[in-house]
């Protein structure tokens, strides 16, 4: 496959994912707002375990491993049964919402930076200071994702669930991004030296 064709496909895929995430954030926000007005409709939506599930396990709305690593705390520790949206306190639901929206927003920003990077490679401007900065930004976004995925908290009438989760993958990506930033810095220095060789 031609190099430019591959880059164009990568650019298109990153743009599609960016749009999908934005649509998902919008739908998620709409769902949370709608829940405030019509909580009965969401009475069977489950938050526990691996999935958000609708009534009687018939369909899975979207995947989350948010409560995989939590433990029940409080005066009346509940069994690790399902947590329904209607049982969750408003504050913990809002924190849950913000946590996930921030993670998704970081993904949008990261994809934006990746698109910038691909575009610069397409016009043969690969080893430039801008691209080194792009990798540093991606590294910082990975760190933010690590922080935002690092805790889970949910409060119900009977118990409070809290967990700390060390997600190694964003840390590894952060390390990779910072190393690439240094490599691109060196590449940029070589390019500048080449440009100033008479």
């Amino acid at each position, binding site marked *: 496959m031609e190099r430019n064709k591959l880059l164009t496909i990568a650019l298109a895929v990153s743009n599609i994912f960016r749009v999908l995430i934005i649509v998902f954030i919008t739908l998620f926000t709409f769902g949370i707002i709608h829940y405030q007005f019509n909580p009965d409709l969401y009475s069977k939506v489950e938050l526990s375990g691996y999935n958000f599930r609708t009534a009687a396990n018939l369909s899975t709305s979207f995947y989350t491993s948010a409560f995989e690593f939590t433990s029940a705390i409080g005066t009346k520790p509940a069994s690790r049964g399902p947590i329904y949206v209607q049982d969750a306190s408003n504050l913990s639901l809002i924190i849950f919402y913000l946590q996930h929206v921030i993670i998704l927003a970081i993904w949008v920003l990261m994809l934006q930076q990746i698109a910038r990077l691909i575009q610069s490679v397409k016009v043969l401007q690969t080893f430039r200071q801008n691209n080194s900065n792009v990798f540093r930004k991606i590294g910082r976004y990975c760190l933010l994702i690590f922080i935002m995925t690092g805790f889970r908290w949910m409060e119900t009438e009977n118990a409070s669930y809290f967990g700390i989760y060390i997600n190694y993958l964003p840390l590894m990506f952060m390390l990779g991004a910072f190393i690439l930033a240094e490599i691109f810095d060196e590449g940029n220095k070589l390019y*500048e*030296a080449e440009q*100033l*060789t*008479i």
Partner: protein
Amino acid sequence: MAIIVNLDVMLAKRKMSLSELSERVGLTLANLSVLKTGKAKAIRFSTLNTICAVLNCQPGDILEYQQEHKV
């Protein structure tokens, strides 16, 4: 940098303008200007060879080493 480019001195000695040198050497005026102002990071032997041939001088007439004074 401790390497000083004395291209302007040699041009004055030979009563030659930078644009004339540019034409005779086959380098762009912008590149020669970078060299003259000391902004260049490196110079190719081939470039030095052509400049020396056109100006009828030695590389030492164009390039000079000056010890840097530490503050």
